[in-house]
């Protein structure tokens, strides 16, 4: 039951060589409560903790009570911290890594725009 070790990059934070490394960039999928403040809570967390966030896609699901979000987290050595801090937000119901997706998913969305 040993916790995976985390990596970190701020000056007063010890970098850990044995790590919990996933290839960056990573796509996280969140299930969230759908109300006006949720997006602010999530983007605010990234800003406040100086985590990298490159792209967001969000859409309501089911009856609109909840939404799904895909976040492109680029080159973030503290990915595990990001996941844990996100999981603590009251409006975030689940956090998963979408290993099947990468940055191309987000660029394709814009490519689909008619001329």
């Amino acid at each position, binding site marked *: *039951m*040993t*916790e*995976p*070790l*985390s990596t*970190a990059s701020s000056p*007063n*934070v*010890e*970098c*850990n060589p*044995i790590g919990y490394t996933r290839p960056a960039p990573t796509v996280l999928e969140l299930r969230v409560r759908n109300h*006006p*403040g949720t997006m*602010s*809570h999530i983007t*605010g967390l990234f800003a*406040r903790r100086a985590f990298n966030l490159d792209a967001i896609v969000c859409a309501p699901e089911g009856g609109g009570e909840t939404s799904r979000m895909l976040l492109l987290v680029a080159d973030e050595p503290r990915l*595990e*911290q990001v996941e*844990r*801090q996100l*999981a*603590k*937000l*009251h*409006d975030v119901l689940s956090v998963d890594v979408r290993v099947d997706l990468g940055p191309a998913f987000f660029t394709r969305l814009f490519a689909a725009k008619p001329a």
Partner: protein
Amino acid sequence: MKTTTGAALLRTLLERQGIHTLAGIPGGAILPFYDALHGSSIRHILARHEQGAGFIAQGMARATGRAAVCVATSGPGATNLLTAIADARLDSVPLVALTGQVPQALIGTDAFQEVDTYGLTLPITKHNFLVRSVAELLETVPLAFQLAESGRPGPVAIDVPKDVLNASITVGALPEPGRVQPPPRCADAPIDELAARLRAAHRPILYLGGGVIGANASALARELSRRLDAPVVSTLMALGAMPDDDERFMGMLGMHGNKGTNLLLQECDLLFAIGARFDDRATGKAAEFCPRATIAHLDIDRAEVGKIKSTALALIGDAADILRRLLDRLGSDEHQRVERRPLAGARGYDTPMSRPAWRARATMLRDAHPLHCPPRAEDPLHPLNLIGFLSEQLPADAIITTDVGQHQMWVAQAYPFRQPRTLLTSGGLGTMGFGVPAAIGAALACPGRRVACVSGDGSILMNLQELATLAELDLPVAILLFNNAHLGLVRQQQELFYGGRYSASRFDRTPDFAAIARGFGLRGVRLDPGGDPLADLADALAQPGPCLIDIPIHDQTNVYPMVPPGAANHQTLTAPELEPALATSSSHD
């Protein structure tokens, strides 16, 4: 079925939460709620500034561990609360901040006294709400209390537009009050592993943080240290968890911690952190903190584990529950029966060591590095002597609040705290102005207890207006003003790290604080250094009712030991060694 207004419903929901006292200041947007309070069983404490109200509520919450409530109107009322909310966030204090908001139809129009309270409180709360309909109150209010008190406690803000307060609603059954939700139970495997590691360790140390007090696990942590015969170090926030006179207690670690304590941590091979977050003021340069130790970390917040230091073993859950289960796995004389295998190729710090030898080492280091302070008879007004004297005058369960600065560190170093929740101090945010209103809150929450606020001549002015509240309430709060005519801690840093360039840290004029206190209707005393100041201090403390005691102290006394900001904890400066280091050192910031 009963028809009521949003304001009356809000009041009822607070009453059902067991709130009997709250602190605030009324204003336009929140007036319907104040109208509903009229005739309620809830006692409203009229603060003189919303920040004061926020810290009065914090004083109640910190002294009891239960969520307390502060109230403000929209706009400036809400912005004035922000510091107290942010402070509660950093020290994990359960607080519910209730603010009025302009009517929803006006939101976004730059209406009179409109600010985006939701946006402002978002990054400084555990969670926040903007209530959009009167029916939402039924869900929001209990949930706010549940969130504030469950897991890692913290502040929750509820912003209520005036039209929601005025709206009527017909309510059937009222919701159950919000209650603490127990965290998921920690699995057995990591507790087994921790027990094995603690048994096998040669140089274990328990590192206690504020979470130990939050979890009401102080006695269990003490029992663990006894069973293991292991030394215990404490953060500022955990002072009081271990009685100061416990033979295994090593005092505070970190920037102004004991030198012996910081040195002992260098030798530790297993650091068991309990409800502590490896704050930079505690660890110094993190990479050099406990360089030889494996770290086991118990916390209710899994995001804290591995945030600063790599951690070998995580135990996520309630500290009381986990410590109880850990103790079940450890024999009552654990330290005697254990056989410790020598480590292959071990030398120096890695050699096996019996527990009694390790404890003897700890005691030796502690005794070799006492706090330096002239004898009381020679210098009764030395801050450390004053604090020693104060502790002799007050009962063991007295509650001490502090402001922020040198005086705060002297209290932390020298006051012999014996019980949890007897030191209330702003640790994470370090907010000057905390002390007086927090003392008022503590006195309100703990009738019959003595409360003393140790403050500085800088800090006291930051919530001075609350002396009016204190006088009105006539609570047993003594304010001890350590008056050095400086922003002392700033002056100290400028002396040590900025080449003695004293920029904006000296007061050219200091007010007559005793006269000011009297002006507010309190007893005000100034100690005379030429007379018998300690006898006068004892006299002033012996009289009933609130008072302010202005104590002239030396204006150049520094807090030692000190680890320079950014340095490693083993680079502790103590007074005599300091001078040569100074001439050559540049800024450490």
